[in-house]
């Protein structure tokens, strides 16, 4: 059986919700809400972090996985229906979570705490996502390497959510269990490391191996190095979680598990960097598209974040600078890569939905006819420049200047989103042909599955 892969119906809805959350997060930074104006553990910072981590990055990743996990294993998605209730639960759960944090900050009346309910609703949403992707991946064992990265990412998601639920129960005063309270008191670094390092970064790495190879016509990576990247990253995560929880429950310091995990993680990332350099060098396509060029900026941000973290650690200042490192990782690496790949993915999926059924039967535009790269390029440049200058303002300690760079990030993001909307509505196809597109416009927020 070779069923192929069809369009995932709700992926565009995830992308729309995700981009809305990114814009909301940037508005918060522009308004001076949360870090750097507030401390890293302040409720305001928790609001900002979760708008970005759950609302933007996790929804983006889930939407992309519903479409591309099936491509990695050449199978159809287990359910094309479940993503909708999952999305509604995730949005509702995020709303409850943010309200719960606002209660902690005294901005909302605080009884009863909404955090336990947020934990339940959010974990229900993520469980639906995990169930759907798990049932898709499970029958495809033994999994190809990119899918094994995704699986490790999904396990990390489950761990991140589990830790988050423990925090929510403890902060909502719904538990008296000593181990749970000990975890809630000390496991924040684990929650962040497994969420950003395991779920978001490992999944992005796994998908990037495949997407970069595909869009640059490079040979798929084989051999031991990519396997080693996964093995080292898996070992790093296992040490951070297992030894970290062990240390917390025994009242010991987290610094040894975190240090050991970082060393293994660094080794893994160095090998990943070598793989990606190899992909760019071995590509058959000499002139690469905007999405692959912008992915280089994201990868450079990733390298810069690692360099910054190492430098700060050597100076013994990592604890003071961890917020800056996370900022570069989240906005330079994960968000930069996400926006760059969205620019290609939205165009490709829209093209497939609109023109796939008529290919060969009428003259159809190419995927690149849906985009105007010269116009989008300036928004991407503004985006990366503002992220990098924002990083500098954070390092130097200029909160007001940081808000100016946040405003530039916001403007650039709105520019990129408006390009994505134009792609989705076939605006540039119509502009190029001087008349309306010959096919019906797709819906902005979801895909109509073709009838098979």
């Amino acid at each position, binding site marked *: 059986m070779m069923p192929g892969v069809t369009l995932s119906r709700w992926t565009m809805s995830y992308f729309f919700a995700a981009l809305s959350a990114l814009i909301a997060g940037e508005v918060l930074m522009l308004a001076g809400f949360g870090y750097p104006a507030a401390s890293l553990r302040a409720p305001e910072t928790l609001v900002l972090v979760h708008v970005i981590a759950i609302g933007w990055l996790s929804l983006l990743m889930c939407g992309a996985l519903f479409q591309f996990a099936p*491509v990695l294993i050449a199978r159809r998605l287990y359910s094309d229906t479940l993503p909708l209730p999952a999305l509604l639960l995730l949005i509702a759960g995020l709303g409850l979570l943010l309200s719960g944090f606002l209660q902690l900050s005294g901005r909302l009346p605080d009884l009863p705490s909404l955090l336990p309910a947020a934990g339940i609703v959010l974990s229900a949403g993520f469980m639906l996502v995990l169930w759907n992707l798990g049932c898709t991946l499970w029958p495809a064992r033994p999994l190809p390497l990119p899918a094994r990265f995704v699986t490790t990412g999904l396990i990390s998601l489950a761990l991140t959510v589990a830790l988050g639920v423990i925090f929510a129960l403890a902060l909502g005063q719904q538990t008296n269990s000593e181990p749970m309270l000990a975890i809630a008191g000390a496991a924040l670094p684990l929650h962040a490391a497994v969420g950003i390092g395991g779920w978001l970064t490992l999944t992005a790495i796994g998908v990037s191996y495949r997407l970069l190879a595909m869009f640059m016509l490079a040979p798929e990576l084989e051999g031991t190095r990519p396997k080693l990247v996964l093995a080292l990253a898996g070992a790093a995560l296992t040490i951070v979680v297992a030894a970290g929880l062990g240390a917390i429950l025994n009242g010991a310091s987290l610094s040894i598990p975190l240090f050991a995990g970082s060393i293994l993680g660094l080794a893994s990332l160095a090998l990943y960097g070598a793989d990606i350099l190899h992909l760019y060098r071995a590509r058959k396509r000499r002139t690469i598209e905007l999405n692959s060029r912008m992915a280089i900026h994201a990868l450079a941000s990733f390298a810069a974040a690692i360099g910054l973290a190492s430098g700060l650690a050597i100076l013994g200042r990592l604890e003071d600078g961890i917020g800056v490192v996370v900022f570069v990782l989240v906005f330079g690496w994960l968000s930069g890569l996400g926006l760059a790949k969205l620019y290609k993915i939205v165009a490709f999926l829209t093209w497939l939905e609109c023109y796939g059924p008529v290919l060969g039967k009428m003259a159809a535009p190419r995927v690149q006819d849906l985009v105007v790269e010269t116009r989008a390029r300036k928004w991407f440049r503004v985006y990366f420049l503002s992220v990098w200058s924002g990083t500098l303002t954070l390092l130097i300690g200029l909160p007001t200047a940081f808000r100016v760079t946040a405003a530039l990030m916001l403007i650039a993001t709105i520019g990129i989103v408006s390009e994505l909307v134009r792609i989705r509505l076939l605006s540039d196809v119509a502009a190029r042909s001087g008349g309306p597109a010959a096919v019906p416009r797709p819906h902005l927020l979801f895909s109509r599955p073709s009838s098979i």
Partner: protein
Amino acid sequence: MTTTFVDLDVRPTLRDGGEPFEQIMQTVSALGPDQGLRLLATFEPVPLFHMLGSKGFTHEATELAGGDWEVLFTPLQSVTAVNPVPATANDTTEWPEPDQHLDNRELDPPEPMVRILAAIETLQHGEVLSALLCREPMFLFPELEKRGHQWRGGFEPDGTTYRILVRVARNSEQVA
């Protein structure tokens, strides 16, 4: 084109009472496009002649001194040698030779899909298109299915070239 032969001696396995079939099939599936198999066995392996014949190999069997046999399996230079995977389990009929060949290995996605679907529109009912690709065309299959065409595909022994055969069904709208 000259054919080189990969040697496989299954006589030790047979003498130990083992079953060499899987070993033979693994060796065959690892052969390159211009490679044949030189098989050494303790008897004339007649069932293999038919089996490998359906994979596009001719055979030449010689009895050696001592009752052993040497068989040269030589690949036919035809697409039936690609080890095709049928689209449906019960679809085992022979397909005619392709009427059109495309080499889409150097094209950016989704250009290979565009060319295949365009080429199919120029073919008559029952005609076959053969195309080489650099990866499995996951998004093409639903489109072929919707239009009612049949296909077979699989990776070549080199592991990087994917060959797809599409048999055109002309009244595709009605079939779908």
